[in-house]
């Protein structure tokens, strides 16, 4: 079974995202900031990470850089999911090694579509 880590400082978003991923058949964990997420990744790398940008303690970009330095840290697919919706942020994220990018608000269709494109689920 595929595993997913949801990183967002909003409890509501974590809950909504979890429902979507569990419906697809993922086993989910969540984290309220980049530091908590990084500790979780050091313990065990998930297959997929849904990542907010602006968070206290450690933001999404800092987390992504740290993740990609970990042994095997290049493996998880990372999809940013943020209110930052300008071209500059998208390019910065992709340049830093994100695999996809979602601009909030999102819905189940958008998430499913992105997972299909990444080859993580069949359509």
């Amino acid at each position: 079974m595929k595993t997913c880590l949801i990183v967002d400082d909003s409890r509501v978003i974590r809950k909504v995202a979890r429902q979507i991923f569990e419906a697809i058949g993922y086993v989910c964990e969540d984290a309220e900031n980049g530091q908590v997420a990084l500790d979780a990744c050091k313990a065990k790398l998930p297959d997929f990470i849904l990542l907010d940008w602006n968070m206290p303690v450690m933001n999404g970009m800092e987390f992504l850089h740290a993740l990609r330095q970990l042994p095997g840290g290049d493996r998880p697919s990372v999809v940013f999911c943020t209110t930052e919706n300008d071209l500059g942020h998208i390019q910065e994220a992709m340049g830093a090694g994100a695999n996809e990018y979602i601009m909030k608000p999102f819905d189940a269709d958008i998430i499913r579509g992105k997972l299909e494109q990444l080859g993580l689920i069949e359509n």
Partner: protein
Amino acid sequence: MKPEDFELFSTLVKQRSGLVLTPEKAYLLESRLFPVARKHSLKSLEDMAQSLRARREETLMFDITEAMTTNESFFFRDQKPFTLFQKTLLPRLLTARAAKKQIRIWSAAASSGQEAYSLAMICAEEAAKLQGWKIDIIGTDLSREMVTRAKTGIYSQFEVQRGLPVTHLVKYFQQIAGDKWQIKDNIRQMVQFREGNLLTDFGVAGPFDIVFCRNVLIYFDLPTKTRVLAAINGVMPPDGFLVLGGAETVLGVSDAFKIVTGEHGLYVGASFDVAQLAATK
């Protein structure tokens, strides 16, 4: 709504677009036609029916029909047909049309243009192979509003995230406002959009080597499907390709086309030798 008014509206819509409205859809009819009545300064749907009985005014009939169309679409919808286009159909036509160096593609019932632009983006990705080729991509739709939208190539933040990889967003779109994105001119210029009705003259002249006609036949009754498929066959060369939506088929509907085993959604003319296709792969 009075049964005779429902009958009047549904007959009109069926005749003009092919769309079949069953009485359970009366609520849909009401919610969609109310704004049309408003626009024409009619107080109720009953008044609108009365007015139509008195005079069959073209603009009113047009607006009623347009309002009843379902225009949902998204980029790279279902993904597989687009992979098929890129990996199988395009290579096959690059061989078959090598003398003419021209391929004509029709997105029939194009709605707001996502399908046609998805095909254009694939052609842009394959630009190296298409050097010196003329690729025509034409989108048609019954709905004037959709054709106008498609031509602008402007989509909401929501629309550009449904089915479109972010790499394509970055490469082929420009952000024109916080949550509005417009397809870039080089892609927009590859596609033409026109009003056209599948039940009449299509609004475009063939021949078309590839026809995408997806998620529109599902709204038609059997005789209409058969008729439209025959007419589409009439604007395709014997070695052309037809792509239908996931819930559509020619089986039991039309002898003009046959299925291609193993390629869901792909159909070829009855006389086409499918082995040729396998040879390209």
